């Protein structure tokens, strides 16, 4: 019985994306006995994605509305009927230890609803740049080593939502990603979860590899694309917005203004 759904949002499928998707799927295939895959995509990609993997049980969820990252994830969560789900970005991959290491903790920490792996960040050339999520284990950083709490999050934003394992029911109860929050939607999500008492833990094993600043990725656009580039005051605005909005389960109108 598969009790984990991997949600993979996809908005296009050109040649480069096909290579990335193939790599991402290969990393999921190693867990095919325990995991099924939901690809959330526009209808024009559906046909091409059918029979994309022989090993995996795949559901194609067509999103004809918003095809931004958050909306696609949210649709995946809405349709998810397994106990747990995870988020996989098309240019990322799970490491072989991901499932085993997280399961070792799931079995023991029954009251934890979110398990984050240590994320290995690499640059587009494949070189290691840093780890993410690991700081939860730094001595004196959080109240309880290994766990992320709301107080710490108010001062430190660098946690990665992709690759984590989330208890579906708990996320549905607490609300999913807010697509109207630019840049800091993941930060707001974690603030909200921890504020509502959801226990979030980092598993001290590298379970996920994330490509930082790939050309045309969302965060690359925020930094480099003239039409989408965020200025420093804007970055500050979105950080402050996350800190204000996490009290609310659902998205509210965000009036964008910077001083």
């Amino acid at each position, binding site marked *: 019985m598969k009790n984990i759904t991997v949600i993979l949002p996809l908005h296009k499928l050109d040649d480069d994306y096909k290579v990335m998707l193939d790599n991402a799927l290969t990393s999921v295939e190693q867990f095919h006995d325990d995991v099924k895959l939901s690809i959330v995509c526009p209808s024009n990609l559906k046909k091409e994605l059918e029979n994309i993997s022989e090993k995996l049980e795949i559901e194609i969820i067509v999103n004809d509305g918003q095809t931004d990252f958050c909306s696609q994830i949210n649709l995946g969560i809405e349709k998810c009927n397994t106990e747990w789900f995870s988020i996989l970005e098309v240019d990322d991959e799970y*490491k*072989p*230890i991901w499932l*085993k*290491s997280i399961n*070792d*903790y799931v079995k*023991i920490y029954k009251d934890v609803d979110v398990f984050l792996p*240590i994320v290995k960040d690499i640059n587009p050339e494949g070189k*290691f740049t*840093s*780890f993410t999520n*690991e*700081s939860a*284990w*730094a*001595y004196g*950083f959080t109240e309880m*080593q*290994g766990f992320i709490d709301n107080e710490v999050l108010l001062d430190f934003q660098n946690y990665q939502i992709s690759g984590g394992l989330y208890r579906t029911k708990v996320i549905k109860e607490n609300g999913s990603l807010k697509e109207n929050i630019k840049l800091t939607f993941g930060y707001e999500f974690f603030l909200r979860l921890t504020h509502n008492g959801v226990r979030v833990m980092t598993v*001290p*094993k*590298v379970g996920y590899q994330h490509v930082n600043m790939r050309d045309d990725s969302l965060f690359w656009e925020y930094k480099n694309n003239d039409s989408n580039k965020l200025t420093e005051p804007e970055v500050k605005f979105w950080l402050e917005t996350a800190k204000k909005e996490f009290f609310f389960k659902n998205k509210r109108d965000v009036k964008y203004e910077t001083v």
Partner: protein
Amino acid sequence: MSNQENIGKLESALGRINNGDSVVYFLTYDTKTNARASVKYIYDLALTLNKNGRKSKILVEDKNYVGVSSWLSEEYSELEVVSIKEDKIELKIDDTLVVPEYYANTMQQLATIRCIKVLLVQQKEYLFETLPIGSRYSEFGFDKVITTTESAKKYILEYFPESLVYVIPPIIGDNFKPIELPLKPYVAISCRDRAVHRKVISEFYLKFPQLRWITFRDMVQMSYDEFSTNLKECMVSLWVDDESTFGTFPLESMKCGVPVVGKIPDTEPDWLSENGMWTYDGSKLVELLGTYILAWIDGIELTQEVLDKMKNTLEPYDTIKTKDNILSIFTSIVNKRVESIDSTLTKLKQEETV
């Protein structure tokens, strides 16, 4: 003293031995609430004997002795503590006095006392520290030695070949056992030298800045139970102790299933094999540690071969075996005294009949 008086004294000594009234005194130093493996070793010897019908007492300098209750468990409190100054102990010929090398300076004063005298050598480096140059411990009646390793025994026999040397390794307590929970990204660090301790941690964080979130657990100032509880959740142990004779810390780690990165001490421990990540070169430690930690967070586990070697290393130090060893060695020491008393008695009685 007449022969009759001597015969009387010797017969009552034999009687005390037979009745279990003879006492084994363990001269012990005060660690002032600090946990010390060397003192635990002494308490373990005493407790094992006491629990098996051989009366044992802890002998201390004076009543200011703080004791071990803050770091050793309740069961050790059954051992009576007596002081040299206030209790004015009278050592009889059937009593045994065990003196650690730390107190070797007292041996000249103890030379005239006729009890069974045993030198306890845990740190062979200190053997000559207070011994007058060119002297032998046997000159002061210390011809029996207990030490912790075969290599220390060899060393002692090289310089004091007249000694009867027994090997009793420390007891690696059964509270050292693997935990059910996954190990945590902590390094249990044990360095004799605090400067080395600081240097290793600093070097590690500078050389592996991506691992700055790894915690070093300083394994000092803990009770024995806290020590084992803290040790068993660490993913790796780091051990630097050039002067170590036995090396209790690595074995405690192995018993917890925690692998060891360590610098091989000046005297190689008896148990050293491919049961850990060892180096003779202290400058390689940080590299070894970082490499292991990076592998660990990547999910690379120790091979079964290494795990088996860690397990096999511990076999000779099984608690029951060590306790049996303690009992049989002290029985043998006392039996030698019984033989000697018997032979003196026979001689005296023959003289009486003539």
